[in-house]
Structure formats: C-alpha cells, structure tokens
C-alpha cells in the first residue's frame, strides 16, 4: 500500500474531532494531528507537515480561513473547509481546494479528499 494520506483536522467541537478520529482510519487515511482552533492548526502544520488539512471555519482565537491564509504562506498543503456557511463568493489567495457545507456525508467527504489528493491514490 502506498503511503496513506496524512490528514490534520481542526474543529472546536470534540464530537466532530472524535468523528474524524474514528472515520479517517476506517477510510484508510492517517490522522496526524487535531487542533481546537486556527492558532493550534498553524502550529500543528509546522510540526507534522500533513498532506491535507480539513478545518472548520468558526473557531475561537483564529478562524479556519485565517489559519488557511497563514498556513499557505509557508506550505502548499491542500486545505478543505468544512463549514455550516455557504461557500463565500470571494476567492482567497490560499491553498483552499474545497468548501464542504455541513452536514457532510461520508461519500461527499471521500470525494473531496480524493479530489484534493489525487496522487495518493
């Protein structure tokens, strides 16, 4: 098996983080780190160098969008936004590759991950 995709996630809700913690290994991905806010996510990315980032938007201290902007300055890691909001119209100069609106189904999530990391297949 080719090296599994290393995914870092960020969400301020423990339920969601637990969901990813159980789901991602079942789907064959490697969860390399969890963050509870944007600030932690930025630091996490610098230490674990994930292949993909899935992040919530509305989080304390630093939002997912701000964290994505920050991460994009040093890394080219693809970022999937998982938000209860609709996809914003404006484009940002970041490596955000997808917006998923909550609630997201497993197939939708798998599709999005596949789109973001095709080389890993």
């Amino acid at each position, binding site marked *: 098996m080719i090296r599994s995709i290393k995914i870092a996630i960020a969400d301020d*809700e423990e*339920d*969601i983080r637990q*969901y990813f913690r*159980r*789901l991602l290994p*079942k789907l064959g991905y490697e969860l390399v780190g969890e963050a509870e806010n944007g600030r932690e996510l930025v630091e996490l990315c610098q230490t674990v160098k994930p292949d993909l980032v899935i992040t919530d938007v509305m989080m304390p201290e630093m939002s997912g969008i701000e964290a994505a902007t920050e991460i994009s300055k040093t890394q080219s890691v693809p970022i999937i936004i*998982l938000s*209860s*909001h609709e996809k914003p*119209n404006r484009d940002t100069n970041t490596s955000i590759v997808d917006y998923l*609106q*909550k*609630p*997201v*189904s*497993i197939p939708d999530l798998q599709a999005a991950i596949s789109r973001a990391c095709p080389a890993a297949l």
Partner: protein
Amino acid sequence: MTAKANADEAFQPFADAIPSMIWTCAADGSATFFNQKWCELTGMSMKDSLGDGWAQVIHPDDRERVLAAWQHATQTPRSHDIELRYRMADGSYRWHLVSAIPMLHADGTVSHWQRICTDIEAQRSSLESSETLMQAFVDSAVDGIITIDHQGRIESCNPSGCVMFGYDESEIIGQNVSRLMPPSFATRHDDHLASYLQTGEKKIIGIGRELVGQRKDGTVFPMKIAVSEVHVGGRKRFAGIVHDLTERDRLQDELRGRQRVLERVAKGRPLSEVLDTLIAFAEESRPDMIASTLVLDKQEGCLRHGASRQLPDFYLEVIDGVVPGPKVGSCGTAAFTGERVVVEDIKTDPLWEDYRDLATRANLRACWSEPIIASCGRVVGTFAMYYTEPRSPDAEDLQFVESCAKVAAIAIERERVDSQLRQMAAIVDSTDDAIILKNLKGVIEKWNHGAERVYGYSAAEAVGQPIAMLVPDDRAYELKANTETIRQGGKVDHYETVRVTKDGRRIHISSTLSPVRDTEGRLTHFVDVQNDITQRVQVQDEIARERAVLDTIVSGIPDALLMADLDRKLTHCNQGAYEMFGYAPTELIGQPKAILYANPDQHSLQGMQRFNPAARQHTEVVEIEWRRKNGDVFTGETVGTIIRDRSGKPISYLALIRDITDRKHAEATIRESNRKLSLLLSNLPGAAFRIAGDADFTVEFVSDGCLELTGYSASELTTGRMLLLPEDLDEVRKKLNRSVAEREPFDFVHRARHRNGEIRRIWARGQGVFSDEGELIAIEAFISDFTELHDAREQLVQSERLAAVGQMISAIAHESRNALQRIQAGTDMLGLELDEHSDAHNDLQRINRAKEDLLHLFEDLRSYAAPIQLDVRAKNLAEVWHQAWANLEVSRTGCDAELLENTGGLELTCIIDAFRIEQVFRNLMENALAACSSLVRLTVSCIESEINGAPAVCVSICDNGPGLTDEQRARVFEAFFTTKSKGTGLGMAIAKRIVEAHQGTIAVGDARDGGAEFLITLPRTLS
C-alpha cells in the same frame, strides 16, 4: 597913658570878640571902656558913653533904682547883679542882666569894675505873660478861687468866688474863711486848720472834699473844694478852688428821674405807666409846673391823651382827639409844625384862641410844648409844661422840656417797636414756614412754631442744639457752603435741599438764608426761613417722571407729532416727525404746516373742519396726502385736535400722523397672500381646520377639502367629534392634551368615519394657538387622508418585522447545520457498524431522512428569510429551466410528466443568478408536479416584454392541473401558505423574492385551459 588905660587897650580885642555888651568903669563908677557890641547894640559911640554917658540908655523907670543900687553896691568889693532895661539902637528897650565884677588891686581895693550885660528880654517877657495869664485864669475861672493865710484869713477871692458866695471882693478880703460855711462846718474848719498846722495830717489838702457852702444871704449850697498849700516867705498859705455843685445835683436829680423813666421803658412797662412816671418826675423837679404828654394816633391822625397828673378831666376830654393844625393851642401846633411852641400867656396868644376858655377854666396861663420826635424824624407826640401864671422859659427850662420830650420819644418809640415786634412775633409764630435763627457757630437760638411743625422738635428741644442735627450726612457740606456764600455777600434764596426731621424722615425744603448784622454791620446770626416743599417735590418728581415717560413715548413713537400755534405755524415736532418728513428741526419749527401738505385742498379743509376753534370737535381719523422734503408724497393716517387751556381757550393745534405707506403695501401683500392661501387650501388634498380646545372639538374653521375627506361640507362639519370613533375619542383627546400642555406640535394618525361609513385613516398635524397670557385659544391642524399611506406603512412594518424574523431563521438554520453534522457523523459511524439489512439499519435510514427533511426546512427558511446576494452573469433562461427539470428527475419518478417549450425563437439570455432562478423554476415545477394527479404537462412559453421601460423576457409556466382557487390566487405568494400536505409553504414566496431580487415580477396568469399559470418577467439586464 595910665596903667589902667594900658590894660583897657590890651583887653579890648578880647572884649570885642565876646557877643555880649561889656563895659568897664572905674571905682568911682565913671565908665572907661565899652566894647564894640555895646556901640553896635545901643547905637552909642564909646565917647558918648564914657563917664556917665551910659546912663542915658537905661530905661527912665529903671535909672534911679539902678544908679542907687550901684551906688550902694560899689561900697563893697563884691560881685553883684542887677536887671535893667537898655535902650537899643532902634529905640526899643530890652531887659538885660548886668553882672558887675570887681577888679582888685593888690591891697584889695577896687581898681575898676567889669560889667557884663546879658540880654534877658525873652525870659522877662515870658514870665510877665505867664503872670498875666494866671491872673486872667483866676479872674475868669468859673470856680471860685480863694486864698487864705495860715490863720484862715481870706487874702484873695476871684470874681466867681464872690458871685458864688454873694459878697463883694472888698467885703470878704481879710475875713475868716469860716464865714463862707454854715456854722456847724465853720467851727470844725478852724479845728481842722489848727490840727493840720500842728500835725501835718491832711484832711482836705490835695484831696478835695464835698462840703456845704453858705452864701452871704444865709442860703446853703453843695460845693466841692480842693485846697493846695503854698509856702510864701516862710509862711504857709492855702489856695482853695470851690466848685458849686447845685447844678450838678439838680442834673443828677433829673438824671435819676430820667433813669426811672427809662428803667420802665427798658422793663417793657406799658407806655401809659412810662409816661406817667415821666410826668411825675417832671413835676417833682419843677413843683410849680403841670406836665402833660399827648401821643399821636397814627391811624386816626389825631393826638391822644398820653399822661397827666394834674390837668382836670374836662380839659383832657377836649384835648383827646385833637387834630394837629397850625393854630391848635401849643401842643396841636407843635405836633403840626414839629417845632417847639412857647406860649407865655394863653390869655393873649392867638394860637390858643379856640381853647382859651377851656384853659381859663382849667386855670392855665402859660404852656410850652415840645414836639416829641422819633429817631426817624417824625412827630409822635408832644410834651407840654403848663403854668398857672404867665411865664417865659429860661434856657434851663427849655433844656428841660426838650430832654423830657426826648425821654418821651424813647418811650413812645419803644412802644412802637414793641408793637412791631409783637406783630412780627405773631407773624413768625403764625407762619407755616420754619424760621430758625442760628448763630455763627451754627447753634440754634430761635425756633418758631413753624419749625416745630416741620421738624417735630419743640423749641425747647431745638434751641441750643447745632443746626447740623437737621442736615443729613450727604448734605453736610451745604451748611458751610451756604453760610460762606452769605459771608461773601452772596444770596441763598429758595435753595432747595433735604433735611431730616426728629422722627428721621427726609423732607424737602426750600431755604432762604439771610444775615443778621449788629448796628455796626457785623454779622451775628443767620435767619433760615424754610418752607416744607416735600409734597411739591413729590408732585414735581411725579410730574418729571410722567414727563419723562411722555417724552419717551413721544420721541419713541414712529408716528409724527406736530404741534402748531393758532396760525398753524409749527411750534413743536417729535423725532418721528423729522424722520417722517426728512426735515431738520430748524427747517420745520416756525414754518406753516402747509409745507407738509401735498394737497392744498386738504390743508384748507383741515383748517376748516379740524383746526378751527369755531368748528365742532373733529376726532375722526382721515387719510391725508403728505409731502416729504424730498418731494415724495405719502399717505398718512391723521388725527388732530385743538389743545385748550383750563378755561377752554384754544392755545395750539396737535396732529398725529402715521405713515401708512408700508401698511398699505402690507395690506396689498396680505390680500394677495390670502388669495393665494385660499387657492392653495381649496386645492389641498386634505383639509385645514381650526377647532376650539373643548370636549367636542367644536370646529371654528375648516377648509373646503373636508368634503372629500369626510363627506361633510365645511358648513356641515360642526365638531371634530362627529368624525371620531367613540373608542378612539379618549386616545385622540389625550394626544391633543399632551400637545397643548407641552406646547409641542402634534402629529398622529387616527381613524375617522367617512359620511359613507368607511373607516379612513386620517393624518393630523398641527398645534395649539395661545394668547400672550398663555391661554389656549384654539387648535389649528391640517388633516389628510392617510389610509393608503397607512397600509403601505403597515406593509413596511411587516416586512421589517419579517426581515428580523428572517435573520433569526437564518441564524437558526446555520447553527442547526453544526448539529446536523454531528447527527450525520453519528449515523455515518453507526451505518458503518450496522448490518445493512438489519432493522437497526432501517431505523438509521429513517433518522437520516428526518435529518434531510430538517435540513431542507432550514434551507427553505433561510432562502426565504436571509438576504439574497445574487451571483449574476449572462445565462440563457432555457438552460436554467432545463437544469431545474433535470434535477427534478427523482421527484418525477413514477410520474408521467412532460415539459413543452414554446420559446418562439426568442433570444432568452438574461443577466441572472442561474442558481437562484433555477430554484424558482424548480419550485414552480415541484408545485405543478404535486398538483397534478396523473399526466403532468408543463408548458413553458416566452414572449418579449418590458419592465419599467427596460427590455425584459416574460416566461409563462402553465400546468394542466385544476388551477388556482380565488383564495389561492390571492395568497399564493404568502409565506407559509400551502395547499400541500408536505412542504414549508415557502416555495412561491421564495420564488417571488428571487424574481423581485432580479427586479422582475412574478404573477398568477389566467390560463385558458384552466390550469395554473405563473408569469415570470425578468429584465434582460440589471440596472
């Protein structure tokens, strides 16, 4: 030449140098030498003088004596002097003292005599004259001069002494001086004299005494005697000067008598008593005389009985009331002429012709009358001395009568002065003026009743106090200034100032200060006559105040005030007049009023009707054409009147002119403005009205617009209450009351019942109208029909409320996504765990479906409520509805449905948010699918259209279902309106929102075949 001759020769130069006569004679007395002075003064040559030739120049009276004396003197060789007279060269004799000095031989015998002659003529003549003078004094002395020897024998007595004692000189020389005294004094005199000669104790010498003298006839008289002691030839002699005191004593008696009279005068005794005393004194001093005084009655011009002790009553009765004349006895004539009248015998004197019998009856024969003349020179009465025998007065009598008249004059004058003083005092005490006498130190000395009344101090309280107590502090400087003015000869006349009364009131007084001077013109006092003018000052102040107010009014009024004299020449104009007419004061005063009239006819008409004392009172206001200095003519509202004095006599004319040019202009403007206003009001879409602030809102005025608004005409609409719904009455009243109370305009909408029963919404705006006192007069307002506006507003409020609800729903929808995500996560995880065919898995599917429904509900709510943000681009509408139809494939499953298109080749590209428009089509298609039972046929057709003048595309979507009921048609776009058992009822509302967000419209159409038709019109481009 003998030795003697030699000696003379040697002596000569010395002798010639001496300024006196010197000659030498031999022992036998024959002259041997004379000096040059002798020859010069006597005119005798030496040759003629030698021998006994010198004797020729001796005065014959002296020659025998001198020769004898020298004969005798030359017997002894001693110097001796003799006085003799020599005849001088001019023939006159001069006294000389000749000193003879013997020149002796060695044996002591006389060789010759030197005789030195000194001229003593001056001394001799002086002595002679003093002796002569003394004798003359003695002879002419008024006093008696008597000399006695040490034994008291009379040696000489001068003529006055002889007369005094009544002796001839020859009778008295050699008599003892005691003969000149009464016997009682005479014996004592001898004792005195002896005592003095023995003891030297002086009783009279050098002292002078009053003694009694006795005349030859035995009568005695008082005398004063002064004695001096003279030693002559070793014996004492005494010279006495005797002064007869008879006259003095008589004068003293008279003086005492006069003093008695004057004392009574001084004590202020009544005139009758004083004159009676005078009569008594006169008759005492002249026992044979009858005295009488008459006093002139100034008012009646006659003589009145003054005083008399001896004249009989019948005589006095006739005399009393006699009018002075040139022939009215002694007194009447004296009073008439002012001259003394001496009638020695009444029986013969013509002056007494008319009164002779009367006088005879009274046994009167002589009457000397002295007019009593006051210091002013006028006769005030007569003093008369009557005798029962004919008699002529001596000098002393005349002096006496004159002195009595003078005393009487003093008494009468005093009486007159007293009476004047009494009158003056009465005046001083009866006047209301305060009369205050103060001395130079400012101390009050006199204080009249008027002063008591004015100041409240009694005389006892005020006299002795400083005048300063009456002067307020702020006026203290006046006292000194005013007295200083008087001192420097100025006047302080009716000086108006302020004083303080006893009770502390400030009063206004007018003070006239006058100096009081003594007889030598020295200032001694000031008299301050003060008039209490407080009331007058108050009145004056009041007048001044009123005058000031009047002046202010007169000068302040913009109207012109003209005052003219009866010739209609201007005398006074106020500032308003100068400004109105453009003249300077000097250009107007004195000018005829005619220059101000623009129309001469009006001038003469005014002169006839108004400014004519003969015409009736004319007070109407008239409009007159006036002319300004610059020629402008203006209309002035004019009133005028005649000013009359108290008696009604016309004194001047007064005219008041108001320039009404501006007012006329304003009136025209107001008329125009009123016209415009009424025009405006009649065209207003509402009505203006004015109501009383009462319970019924009684209408005072309402504009014609009320008819349309309420259905009532202006005259029918009597109260506001008739329009109001009863249940609104309190609310409206509350609002109006609050507006009135807070003086704030009101602005509210209320319901009103139209005459036709419709409920209208009326928008009322207005405010209270208040009087100057703050009383509510009325309420003025403008009302307009607010029904439509109200509905629009209601909608606005509704949509605002919806927007708020929408935001809330949007937030709920958003937040629920997180929850849904967790449900999803849970079900996903469970799905992985559960057997796909187990019951538990089915349950999980039901949970998922419920979750999906909830998600859709939230999504619809959010679409409807959340603000729509369009992501527009050019898109062919057909593509959009194709997409929508394709997306409904799942819904169409098991359903026979077809989509018919009839686009007519129309270009269908519009600028749209394709995603949103697709939702519109989808919602419409879903409804159609839901409504139709079996075969569903949807027809989409398009036509070119326009919205608000912009090109648009109208898309019609028509189904073949049962169509819409009327209610459905009306409410199909309302939110939550649904006929379906499922669904949120938001589909059509969302569709409407999206279309309207594209500036398009969506409406229910009228499909020909009965199905439901919706017409969507979208502009091709967005503005």
